[in-house]
């Protein structure tokens, strides 16, 4: 996964992934996350924000949804989720980008789904 060069802009984000995402799985706004073991409580040592994320992710949702539901800015959400994933507490689901031929069948499924939903 290559990171595109940013356009020359005088505004620089300190949020978003900003190089801190060490996880091997890309953690994009659309990436789904879920608590690895929904039956356990959040470890007490976690920061309160991380505990809230842990609990919310008992049901699978996207990074953007976690951010919106907990009102935590996107970049912060990404960093906290990345740390939770490093600890093995949160599972990061595959994100389909269409960059490899092997993903085509997923995109075809998406198209068939849309054809069914929007007739």
């Amino acid at each position, binding site marked *: *996964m290559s*990171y*595109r060069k*940013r*356009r020359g*802009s*005088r*505004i*620089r*984000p*300190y*949020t*978003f*992934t900003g190089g801190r995402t060490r996880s091997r799985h*890309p953690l*994009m*706004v*659309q*990436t*789904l996350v*879920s608590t*690895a*073991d929904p*039956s*356990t409580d959040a470890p007490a040592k976690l920061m309160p924000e991380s505990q809230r994320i842990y609990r919310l992710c008992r049901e*699978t949702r*996207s990074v*953007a*949804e976690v*951010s*919106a539901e907990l009102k935590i*800015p*996107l*970049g*912060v959400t990404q960093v906290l989720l990345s740390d939770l994933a490093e600890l*093995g507490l949160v*599972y990061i*689901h*595959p*994100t*389909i*980008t*269409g*960059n*490899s*031929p092997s993903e*085509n069948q*997923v*995109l*075809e*499924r*998406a*198209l068939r*789904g*849309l*054809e069914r*939903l*929007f*007739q």
Partner: protein
Amino acid sequence: MVSNDFSSDIPTKMSTKIVIAGGFGAGKTTLVGSVSEIPAVTTEAVMTEASVGHDDTSATPQKVTTTVAMDFGRITVDQQLILYMFGTPGQTRFWFMWDDLVRGAVGAVVVVDCRRLADSFEAVDYFETNRRIPYIVAMNRFDGRLEYTADQIREALEVSASVPIVDFDARDRSSGGTVLKTLLRYALSNSPVAAPVG
């Protein structure tokens, strides 16, 4: 009991993303909302902006914090696949946000308000210049008025010959769905069919 190997006990769900871009007020949020199964959600990203000139209102004069809102919607395609639509912020000074949103997207829709063509030029130019992801142009016919043909739009906005241009009504669910289908078909026809990497 519970296993740490969660890849085996969590049914694999996956997601994918389409970017809804376009000029200020072109109908991006309206399109996201009309095709989404949930009301369009707004989320915020906070960023620093290097202040230019003498900004003495801040304790740290080098930097100003800016909050950028973007909205998104969701379509559950099937039990395992969720498609998200992300609307870009309208103001072009937030280009870097576009980069973050575009990264990993299967494609983009540039929504064009046909009454204000010039406002869409930068958005089209972004995708023509970067060419990272397939995009299509969707002309939002406000109140049923469409003052230009697709060919005229293509010429005015310098849209490549291969890029589909469709017209639609951003408020209409079925019309919005057709736009998404057009994009996916185009992305699939354009996809890397085992082409050598490089």
